[in-house]
C-alpha cells in the first residue's frame, strides 16, 4: 500500500517548478488536442492535474507491484527458451500492469496513442520505477527509443511502429558489438540493399539490453568499404520477422531482471530511419542523450532507494544501547546520502526541463517556421542540455554507487547478506556509471564546456537568479567556489598541454558540476524550506572537495604525466 510518488515530497516540488507553465504550453500548443481527444487537457492547470493524477497511478504500481517483486526478479531473472526471452514472473506481471494502466508511450504524441506528456512526469516515472526495481526500469525505460523514431523516421515508419509502443510493445537500442563498445565508429554489422530495394541486416550484436524486444533500433554499416561513423545508418527491426537468433543471455552482476542479449542477425529485414550515413552522427547521438537522461533517472531512483533503506535500518538497529542513527559517524553518512540524492535529483529535473523546451521547439519547427526569438531560445536550451546531460549522467551515477556502498556500510554485516535489498541495490547501481557512456566518456563530453566557458555561463545564469536574502550567504560561498574553479581552469589552460588538460579534465568537470548542483539546491531552497538542510550539507561537502581538486590542479605540472604514464609503458 505504498505510493512511490506521494511518499516523496521532492517529486511534487520538481513537478511544480515555475518553468512548467512554459514547458506545458509549448508541448500542448494552445491545447488544441482537447477538441480531438477526450483525455487531452483544456488548459495548463488541467494538464498539471493530469500529471499529478497519472503520477499517483505510477507511484501506486511501483509501491504495490514492482517493488515487492524486485527481489524475486533479481533472483529468477529472464530465461532463454526456444530462442525467446521469457521474463521472470514478476517482471512479466509488472509489464502487464503498466500496460493495463496505459503507461507506455507517455511522451509520444496523442496521434500515436501516446499521452503527450512533458518529459518531467516521464522522467519522474522512470525515477520511481527504478527505485522500485532498477532491472525492470530498463525494460520500461527503453520506450525512449520511440523518441528517435518520432524525431527522425518518415511518416510511414512512425505510423507503423509508434502506436505499437503506446500499446506496450517493448524496445531495444542495438548498438554495441564485441569490438565496438565505447567506440561505436567501429560497428561492423552489415546492412545491404537486396534486389527489391529492401534492407537486410547480417552480423552480431552483444550486450543488448532487452535484445528480444518487439521493436529494435539497430545501428549497422550500410556503406560498404567505409570504416568510420560516416558509413553507419540506423534501422528498425521488427521481431515479427523472426530473423534474429538470441544466442545467449548474459549472466551479470546486477540489474539481473533485465535480459542482456547476444543477437545474431541472419538476413534480417529492416527499415531505414531517416537518411543513410546519419546513423551515428545524428540519430544515435540523440538516442544516447535520451538514454543518458534515462540512466540519470535510474541512478537517482537507486540512490533514493538506498538512502531510504539505510535510514530506516539506522533508526531500528540498536547498538551500545541506542539506535545507531544517533552516532555522528552514522548520521553524517545519512545526511550526505540525502544531500547527494537531492542534488542529483535537482540536476535530473533541470536537465529534463532544458531538454523538454528545445525538443518542443524541434517539434514545432516540423509544423511551422520558428520566429527568430524562438530559434535563439531553442539553440540556447539545446546547448545547455548538451552540457547538463553528461554532467547529470556522470554525477548521478557516481552518487548512486556511493549511496549503495554507504547503505551497506550502515547495515554492517547484515547488509552484506542477501536478506536485505541493499546488496541488490549495490549490484544494480554498478552499471549506471558504465553503460550509455562510461563516466570517463561523460567527462570527455563535458570538458568542452569547461574549455569554451559554456559551464561557466550556466553557473552565471544561476548566480544571477533572484533568491531571498536569508540565502545570500550561501550564494556568496558559491561565488567563491566559482572563482576557485576559474582559477583552476585558467591554470590548466596555461599549461598548453593537451594530455595534461585531459588528465585534469575530470577534476575540472566535477568542480563545475558541484557548483551547478550547489546552485540548484540553493534555488530549490529559495522555493521550499525543506531543501535548506541539503543545500547547507551539500555546500559543506563540495567546499572541501573543490579545494582538494583545486590543490591537485594548481600543483600539477606537465612533467608529472610521466609518473602516471609508467604503467602504460
Amino acid at each position, binding site marked *: 500500500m505504498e505510493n512511490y510518488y506521494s511518499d516523496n515530497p521532492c517529486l511534487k516540488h520538481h513537478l511544480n517548478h515555475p518553468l512548467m507553465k512554459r514547458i506545458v504550453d509549448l508541448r500542448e500548443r494552445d491545447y488544441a488536442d482537447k477538441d480531438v481527444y*477526450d*483525455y487531452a487537457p483544456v488548459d495548463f492547470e488541467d494538464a498539471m492535474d*493530469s500529471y499529478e*493524477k*497519472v503520477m499517483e*497511478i505510477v507511484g501506486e504500481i511501483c509501491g504495490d507491484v514492482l517493488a515487492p517483486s524486485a527481489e524475486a526478479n533479481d533472483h529468477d531473472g529472464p530465461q532463454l527458451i526456444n530462442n525467446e526471452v521469457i521474463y521472470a514472473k514478476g517482471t512479466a506481471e509488472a509489464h502487464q500492469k503498466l500496460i*493495463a*494502466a496505459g503507461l507506455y508511450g507517455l511522451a509520444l504524441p496523442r496521434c500515436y496513442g501516446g*499521452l503527450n506528456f512533458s518529459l518531467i512526469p516521464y522522467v519522474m516515472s522512470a525515477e520511481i520505477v527504478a527505485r522500485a526495481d532498477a532491472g525492470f526500469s530498463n525494460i520500461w525505460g527503453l520506450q525512449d527509443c520511440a523518441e528517435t523514431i518520432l524525431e527522425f523516421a518518415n511518416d510511414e515508419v512512425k505510423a507503423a511502429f509508434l502506436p505499437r509502443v503506446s500499446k506496450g510493445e517493448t524496445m531495444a537500442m542495438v548498438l554495441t558489438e564485441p569490438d565496438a563498445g565505447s567506440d561505436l565508429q567501429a560497428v561492423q554489422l552489415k546492412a545491404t540493399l537486396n534486389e527489391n530495394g529492401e534492407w537486410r541486416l547480417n552480423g552480431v550484436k552483444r550486450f543488448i539490453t532487452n535484445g528480444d524486444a518487439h521493436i529494435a533500433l539497430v545501428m549497422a554499416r550500410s556503406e560498404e568499404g567505409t570504416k568510420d561513423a560516416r558509413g553507419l545508418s540506423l534501422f528498425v527491426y521488427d521481431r515479427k520477422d523472426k530473423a534474429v537468433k538470441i544466442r545467449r543471455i548474459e549472466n551479470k552482476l546486477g540489474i539481473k531482471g533485465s535480459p542482456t542479449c547476444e543477437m545474431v542477425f541472419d538476413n534480417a529485414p529492416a527499415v531505414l530511419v531517416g537518411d543513410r550515413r546519419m546513423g551515428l552522427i545524428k540519430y544515435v547521438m540523440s538516442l544516447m542523450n535520451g538514454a543518458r537522461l534515462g540512466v540519470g533517472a535510474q541512478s537517482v531512483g537507486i540512490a533514493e532507494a538506498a538512502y531510504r533503506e539505510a535510514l530506516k535500518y539506522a533508526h531500528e538497529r540498536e547498538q551500545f544501547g541506542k539506535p545507531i542513527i544517533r552516532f555522528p559517524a552514522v548520521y553524517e553518512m545519512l545526511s550526505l546520502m540525502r544531500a547527494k540524492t537531492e542534488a542529483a535529483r535537482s540536476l535530473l529535473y533541470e536537465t529534463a526541463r532544458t531538454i523538454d523546451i528545445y525538443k518542443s521547439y524541434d517539434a514545432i519547427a516540423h509544423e511551422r517556421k520558428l520566429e527568430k526569438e524562438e530559434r535563439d531560445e531553442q539553440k540556447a536550451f539545446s546547448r545547455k542540455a548538451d552540457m547538463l546531460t553528461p554532467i547529470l549522467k556522470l554525477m548521478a551515477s557516481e552518487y548512486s554507487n556511493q549511496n549503495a556502498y554507504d547503505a551497506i556500510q550502515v547495515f554492517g554485516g547484515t547488509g552484506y547478506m542477501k536478506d536485505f535489498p541493499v546488496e541488490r541495490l549495490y549490484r544494480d547501481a554498478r552499471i549506471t556509471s558504465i553503460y550509455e557512456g562510461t563516466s570517463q566518456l561523460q567527462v570527455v563530453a563535458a570538458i568542452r564546456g569547461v574549455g569554451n566557458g559554456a559551464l561557466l555561463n550556466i553557473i552565471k545564469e544561476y548566480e544571477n537568479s533572484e533568491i531571498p536574502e536569508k540565502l545570500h550567504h550561501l550564494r556568496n560561498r558559491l561565488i567563491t567556489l566559482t572563482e576557485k574553479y576559474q582559477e583552476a581552469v585558467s591554470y590548466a589552460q596555461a599549461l598548453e598541454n593537451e594530455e595534461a588538460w585531459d588528465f585534469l579534465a575530470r577534476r575540472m568537470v566535477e568542480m563545475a558540476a558541484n557548483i551547478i548542483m550547489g546552485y540548484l539546491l540553493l534555488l530549490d531552497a529559495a522555493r521550499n524550506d525543506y531543501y535548506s538542510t541539503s543545500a547547507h550539507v551539500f555546500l559543506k561537502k563540495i567546499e572541501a572537495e573543490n579545494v582538494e581538486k583545486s590543490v591537485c590542479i594548481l600543483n600539477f605540472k606537465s612533467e608529472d604525466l610521466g609518473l602516471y604514464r609508467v604503467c602504460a609503458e
Partner: protein
Amino acid sequence: MIFRIVVLAKQVPDTRNVGKDAMKEDGTVNRAALPAIFNPEDLNALELALQMKDQIPDSEVVILTMGPFRAAEIIRESMYRGADKGYLITDRKFAGSDTLATSYALSLAVKKLMPCDVVIAGRQAIDGDTAQVGPQTAEKLHIPQITYAEELVDINRESVTIKRRLERGVEVVQAKFPVMITVHSSAPDCRPRNAKLTMKYKHARATSELQEADSKYNDLRNARPYLIINEWTVADLNADDAWLGLGGSPTKVKKIDNVVLTHKDATVMTPSDEDIDVLMKELIASHVIG
C-alpha cells in the same frame, strides 16, 4: 441487446489502518478519522465485471453506489478502471440503513436498470462484515445467486461459469442470467487505474458535488454528458419511506465489545514449493522468523 453488468460498490472507512481515534466513545465508527476507500472486495467484484466485459462484445459495466455525495468518488474510480457509467443513490432518508434497508434500496435501483444480466458485488464490506447485502438484494430481485466467487471460468451470452472459494475447497457452478454474484477477496486484484481513462473521467461529478465545488469545468461537463454522474433519490426509486433508513432497519446496535480473536481465517497450504515460499515470506514479513 446490450449485456449489462451492474456492480454494487460501497465507499467505506479504511478499517485496515485503524488509529486510536477510529472509534467514538459510544462505540460507533468515527468516519471522520478514517480515510474513505473503495471497499476492497468490491474492487475484486469490479475486476470480474470488467473481465466479463472484456469477453462479451457489446456489454457495459454500470456502477451502483449508495452513500453521501462524496461516494461519487467510487464511481469515478470505477470509470478510471474501465466501467462505463454509474449511479449515485443518495438521500438523507437512506442514513442509518442496515442490510435489510440497504438491500431494499439497491434492489429498487437495480430494477430501474433492468434488464440486467449480471449483478455483482463484493462478498462483504469491511465496515460491517455482514455479507448479507448481496444475498438479500438477490432475494428481493428473485434471481439466483452465486456467492464467494473467486474466478470467472467462462462466460457467454447464455451462461456464466464461476469457481467458488469455500472453506475446504472450491466448487465450480454455472448459472443463467440474470444472476447475482458476490466476490471473495481471493479473486484477482482489480486492474490499475488507466491513465487515459483517468484523464477522460477526472472531471465527472454528481450534481450534489457540484453545488459544493467550483464550477471551473462546467462548460466541459455540458459538452460531454458522460461527465455528469447520475443521482437517484428516494423519489427517483419510488421507495416506501417505511422501509428506509433507521426506521426501516430492524438491526439495532446494543453494545460493542473489544474481542481478542483466538482463531484467524485458516489458510490451507499445499506441500508445494510455491506455497512454502508464500508461507516463509509471510513469516518473515510478520517477523515471526528472520
